[in-house]
């Protein structure tokens, strides 16, 4: 009986410890969220979306060039990252079972664990050095390299959920394999794939390290893709480490906008991805 009491006490103690661990984990996370919303909401105004940053010491200004720059970078990165991911995934899901597919799958998983700053170094070597200058193009390549493995793996998951009977039905009608893959398999999985793509773009939208020595950042409007371009995460970084209170306020506003964009994208993705499960 005594043993039972001891066991109960130990049980209760462990339950409490787990509760405490959860509280300890949640507290800083909630604090961060609280500060982003509080400081960001206080600093945001119309100028933020329409003006470029003012010189240090002058109040006001915005991050319009960073917002546009980020949008351009993400668009260009998607342009080559998404098709590569999708076509690669078609190979993995439709010709699975061979050793090469397993190696590719493994490489993709390993690649998505490579620190993003390394991707920046690679884009620097590939684009910045041969072109003799920092450019938006190099930043887009760095971001694209990050997008590829994410899109590849999520798309493969979606393609594998398409029932084999659908493929067989199409093949039995005499449709060739490649047409079946593109028009039946890919089409059936389209919703899930779009969801995965939106989520991967949301993830990459906040990447800063790969842009540091590729896109470099720009205090003004960048006019060409071969020139340095402003990007929202870069501006948040540069303004956060500056000594000016006004720039700190802009950084908080930028952080709030970035978080809202990212969460908005993943919310859209999740709503869009809500489909009836196929039987």
């Amino acid at each position, binding site marked *: 009986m005594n043993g039972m009491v001891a066991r109960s006490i130990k049980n209760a103690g462990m339950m409490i410890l*787990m509760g405490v661990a959860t509280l300890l984990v949640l507290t800083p996370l909630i604090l961060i969220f609280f500060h982003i919303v509080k400081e960001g909401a206080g600093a945001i105004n119309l100028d933020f979306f329409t003006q470029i940053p003012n010189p240090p010491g002058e109040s006001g200004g915005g991050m319009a060039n960073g917002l546009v720059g980020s949008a351009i970078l993400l668009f260009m990165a998607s342009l080559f990252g998404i098709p590569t991911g999708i*076509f690669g995934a078609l190979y993995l899901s439709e010709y699975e079972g061979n050793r090469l597919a397993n190696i590719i799958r493994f490489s993709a998983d390993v690649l998505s664990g490579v620190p993003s700053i390394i991707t920046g170094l690679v884009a620097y070597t590939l684009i910045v050095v041969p072109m003799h200058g920092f450019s938006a193009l190099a930043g887009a390549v760095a971001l694209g390299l990050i997008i590829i493995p994410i899109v590849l793996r999520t798309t493969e998951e979606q393609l594998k959920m398409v029932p084999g009977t659908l*493929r*067989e039905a199409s093949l039995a009608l005499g449709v060739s394999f490649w047409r079946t893959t593109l028009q039946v398999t890919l089409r059936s999985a389209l919703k899930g794939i779009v969801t995965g793509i939106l989520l991967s773009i949301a993830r990459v939208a906040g990447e800063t390290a790969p842009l540091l020595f590729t896109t470099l950042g720009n205090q003004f409007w960048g006019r060409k893709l071969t020139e340095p371009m402003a990007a929202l995460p870069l501006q948040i970084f540069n303004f956060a480490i500056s000594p000016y209170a006004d720039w700190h306020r802009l950084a908080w506003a930028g952080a709030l906008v970035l978080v809202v964009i990212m969460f908005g994208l993943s919310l859209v993705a999740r709503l869009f991805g809500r489909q009836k499960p196929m039987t």
Partner: protein
Amino acid sequence: MNQFHYDSVEATVSHDEQVRDIDSARGFSGDRIFKMITLGFASSIILILLLITVGMAVESVPALKQFGWKFITGSNWDAVQGQFGALPYIWGSIVSSLLAIIIATPLSVGTALFITEIAPGKLGGAIASLVELLAAIPSVIYGLWGILVMAPWLQRTVEPFLVDHFGFLPFFRGAPYGVGMLAAVIIIMIMIIPIITSITKEVLLAVPKSQKEAAVALGATRWETIRMAVLPYGRSGILGAVVLGLGRAIGETMAVTMVIGNAPQISLSLLDPAYTMPSVIANEFAEATSKLHSAALMEIGLILLVLTLLINIMARVLIWGVTRQRSAGGHI
């Protein structure tokens, strides 16, 4: 479902062969071309991985030639004199990541257990989605919070307290700067907890009910069930999650750069500023003018790459092992 899928793939492959015969008879092979195209895109992954490794190795050749092993053991980093020793950065990366992972692991596993075993209903679900939501916040925003909110708080409140009460230990000596190793450890910890927690949660959910029921039937309390049935079953998966967290911790760049103080020194005190491998690349690479300087930074990148590749391969093997175990366990 799974079994069926494999059957169907075999069926499509044999069909593929037939179609290929017909098509090639017509002098056109859509399927073959299609396979080559998709294969081309898929193998670009391997190509990228090779390109990254080889590219960085080639770029760091000048530093490799000049310094050899002294690059890793030397601690003098002077761009003007052309002297480059990376030890302070390696030290900073390893110490900050290890300390962060040591604190983060029990907290993450505790939270994952709380979500899956104690409050598996709505509360657990809400906590899980909150944790997942916060895992998506970018590094630079953690850094912004770290430098503008956490560091001043550390400087005013926490560090004076540590110096007053634990100042006799070598770990808590020096002036309270706010930014430094302590701030880096805390920010890395906050950032990797959501990742470890959500993977551990998945691993715990994969533990078969029969395991737990057996323990409960023997009269085990909740904790005993967790200790005897749940944790042993998920052990390698949890280890995989921790190792993956370690990989993230070592590669973490922006937030660490913003709070670690960026001073290349090896100090036992957690209050002192330090430096990490990704941070020095982030701070110096764009401004590196001499060939040797950028080669040295590339070599630091190469060391970082090799470390994270090894860590990630280890984590994947561990986690893949669990997944296979899970599908095997499903039939019992």
